[in-house]
């Protein structure tokens, strides 16, 4: 999932199946503790629960969404906003805490699948209507998914998951050019997906905004080109996007055709939600402190408000600092630094505590001992194969010993890659440079524009070797919280491609591949993923730095506030938020 953060854009593409069928099997658990405002109260609980209806929630964001078209958006915060006005067959019933829970949304149940997870069937609820009064039909769900195949127009969303799983002719280009897709079969009330591969995590795909229904062949008006749908998307959720001024503001009001009786996931109370785009971070901070805005919809608070929150206990009670499901790490390239002990020397010498500082301090992350972040299967708080010393400032003795084993006792020289422009990355580089110099490893920087960094710079194994990139900064968050969703794109040897490669070190380890290949059939357990994590660390290609944390602020007047850890890195789940009627 792309997250917009000062510095790094996380992109994860092309995951597939996973271990446990959390969605299919787990009974719905009620929301956990709830109550008055205190620091971190919204992470797992609901702050100021209230059923008082009405009022206008005022949100701020520093940038517009990549798109408001449900099939064409990939930013985590935009997926969170999609919850306001789009529904899909499956949804997240519980988004807070460390274990998100899926539940049927437009569908009556969690769907049924055949034994090898290649055929999934869902039944739609009765009485579902769009904001224009028309009925929501299985044809519309099918049409929405078909749009993902029109990659010439719909090219910003998580299409790759759907292209890799749903059976389709090689030349199928979506409903605009190629008509209907025969592998998705609909009746008056049911829809059946036929997959080209086993995919036990399919419900996670059905819970993405990308699988939301789009009115069959009426979207976009003239010519059905689809490109303009994001300007005035039809709503299936409790709110409807009524006024959209690109790069300025978005207004949502209640959808009068939405009925609480058909929706078990959302319990909206507000009448209106206004999102204002304000590119001045300091202005956002001061509006939040003054209470003239209720929350920030896209990112952490800025440095000014952060400082106020951390120094003033009265303000701190209205803030949350959740740990979120992404890992910042450094890829140490085995194609450039071929000796595993030389790579280990980097692991031991890095000053993780200072790197956390460089990434924004202890409110921006906690030192990571292994790659798997909390909320993902296989996470272990104690796993730390390359202990970096007492204060996590690096273990110089072990680093030097590793250098001796590598045959380079005086260190070596290599290059560190990061994307620009970035406020944080130069500091991260400076920290790494200083830390590695302690054992004689000299590094120089090599940078690339953010637009090409992941695709052709470190996403091309050939370029890595040609440029001699020994270390590359990266961050990774899964698009859905399963072990397979997290690991497959960054560790499966079968997924190495010439450009746009997400397995930057070209890791191709049979132990890892075996676990990942068994996962789509539901055959890999949590213990397998723990083993996988250990194996990745043994290979010494991914140096984990931190598990991401974010600092958010909620206006004390807001009711029903809780974190969305499933879709949006702990941003508040705005669909249920109210203002006490004001």
């Amino acid at each position, binding site marked *: 999932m792309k997250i917009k953060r000062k510095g790094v854009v996380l992109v994860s593409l092309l995951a597939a199946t996973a271990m446990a069928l959390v969605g299919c099997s787990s009974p719905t658990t009620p929301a956990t503790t709830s109550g008055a405002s205190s620091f971190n109260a919204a992470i797992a609980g609901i702050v100021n629960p209230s059923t008082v209806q009405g009022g206008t929630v005022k949100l701020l964001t520093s940038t517009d969404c990549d798109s408001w078209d449900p099939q064409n958006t990939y930013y985590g915060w935009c997926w969170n906003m999609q919850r306001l006005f789009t529904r899909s067959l499956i949804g997240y019933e519980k988004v807070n805490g460390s274990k998100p829970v899926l539940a049927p949304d437009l569908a009556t149940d969690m769907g049924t699948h055949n034994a090898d997870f290649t055929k999934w069937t869902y039944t739609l609820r009765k009485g579902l209507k769009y904001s224009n009064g028309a009925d929501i039909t299985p044809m519309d769900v099918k049409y929405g998914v078909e749009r993902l195949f029109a990659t010439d127009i719909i090219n910003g969303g998580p299409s790759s998951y759907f292209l890799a799983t749903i059976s389709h002719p090689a030349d199928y280009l979506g409903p605009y050019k190629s008509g209907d897709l025969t592998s998705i079969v609909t009746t008056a009330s049911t829809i059946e997906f036929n997959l080209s591969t086993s995919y036990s995590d399919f419900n996670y795909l059905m819970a993405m905004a990308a699988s939301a229904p789009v009115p069959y062949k009426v979207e976009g008006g003239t010519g059905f080109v689809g490109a303009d749908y994001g300007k005035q998307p039809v709503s299936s959720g409790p709110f409807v996007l009524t006024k959209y001024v690109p790069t300025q503001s978005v207004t949502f009001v209640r959808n009068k055709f939405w009925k609480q009786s058909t929706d078990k996931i959302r319990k909206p109370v507000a009448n209106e939600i206004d999102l204002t785009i304000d590119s001045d971070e300091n202005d956002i901070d001061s509006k939040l402190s003054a209470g003239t805005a209720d929350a920030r919809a896209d990112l952490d608070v800025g440095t000014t408000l952060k400082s106020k929150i*951390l120094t003033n206990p009265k303000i701190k009670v209205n803030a949350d600092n959740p740990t979120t499901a992404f890992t910042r790490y450094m890829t140490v390239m085995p194609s450039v630094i071929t000796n595993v002990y030389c790579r280990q020397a980097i692991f031991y010498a890095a000053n993780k505590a200072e790197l956390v500082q460089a990434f924004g*301090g202890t409110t921006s992350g906690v030192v990571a001992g292994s790659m798997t972040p909390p909320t993902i299967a296989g996470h272990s708080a104690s796993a730390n194969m390359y202990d970096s010393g007492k204060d996590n*400032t690096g273990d110089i003795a072990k680093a030097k010993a590793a250098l001796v084993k590598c045959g380079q006792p005086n260190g070596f020289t290599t290059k560190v890659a990061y994307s620009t422009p970035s406020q944080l990355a130069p500091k991260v580089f400076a920290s790494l440079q200083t830390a590695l110099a302690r054992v004689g490893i000299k590094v120089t920087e090599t940078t690339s524009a953010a637009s090409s960094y992941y695709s052709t710079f470190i996403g091309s194994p050939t370029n890595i070797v040609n440029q001699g990139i020994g270390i590359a900064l990266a961050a990774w968050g899964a698009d859905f919280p399963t072990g397979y969703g997290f690991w497959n794109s960054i560790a499966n040897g079968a997924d190495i491609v010439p450009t746009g490669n997400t397995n930057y070190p070209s890791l191709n380890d049979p132990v890892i591949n075996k676990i990942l290949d068994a996962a789509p059939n539901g055959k890999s357990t949590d213990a397998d993923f723990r083993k996988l994590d250990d194996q990745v660390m043994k290979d010494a290609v991914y140096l984990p730095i931190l598990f991401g944390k974010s600092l958010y602020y909620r206006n004390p007047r807001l009711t029903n506030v809780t974190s969305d850890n499933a879709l949006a890195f702990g941003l508040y789940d705005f669909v249920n938020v109210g203002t006490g009627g004001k």
Partner: protein
Amino acid sequence: MSLPRGELEVVGESEKLAKKTTTGTSIVGRSLWSIAWRRLRKDRVAMAAGVVIILLVLIAIFADQLSALYGQNYLEHHAVGAGSLLDPATNLPTGTLGGISASHWFGVSPVLGQDIMTQLMQGARVSLVISGLATALSLIIGVSLGLIAGFYRGWVDTIISRVMDVLLSFPTLLLSLSLIAVVSILSNAVFVRFAIIIFVLGFFGWPYIGRIVRGQVLSLREKEFVDAARSLGGGSGWIMAREIMPNLIGPILVYTSLTIPTNMLGEAGLSYLGVGVPPPIPSWGQMLSDAGNYFQVDPMYLIFPGLVIFISVLAFNLFGDGLRDALDPKSTR
């Protein structure tokens, strides 16, 4: 610059010849330079500015030694562990006024806790090297082409003047940004980054001095001493080098002292925009840019680099003004 006859001599070879024959015993004609130096010495503001400039140059030259004396290293981080000077959560310097203390006179930077004073000393080096070399490049191109254009006139002048017009109408900043971005893709070596910044600042600065020189030469070439030199058989090159050039020293000096601060700001601007010298080499503009992110919570981090840039640019400008007054008291500001 045409100089008043009564007060100072025009330094041309033929005039020197003439002078030798008429030099009296009691009245010694003062040279242009001694007269200018007398005026300059009386200008207290310019002298103070000159002292600041000399100090700045000394600091830049001896940055490493001064840092060692003061006991800090600009590369050292004080971010974590026992010697940390930062609050781990807010990332800001602990203590008052951005962590000012006996061992860190200007405090430390947020995030990595680097000593600001030693960073500024290193930054002075970057700033002076880049602005100095860029100014030299402007001068070399500008003076030679201005001289040629003004001396030969005609189609040579037309071509050079049009080129200057075109360069002056370029959106220089945008062009520099894209040029640096493109070159950075090809090579990221420190040397290349320095070279490209110097080239961009220097190359787009030459038409300014070029125009001034051309104007001067257009009037100088009509002077009697030039006619005299020509009638004595002096070739074009000789006349340009020996007759005209010495009369251009004044304006060139003044222009140099005013271009250096412009280029300092240019370098700071490019660094501010993230296309300056690569880290960990400190640069004033880069520090200012970084400090902008913390100006509400750690204003001292913004104030010190800001002050240093302000003082340096002001010193060069005041000195340049003083120099101009000294060389040409008739000119108006």
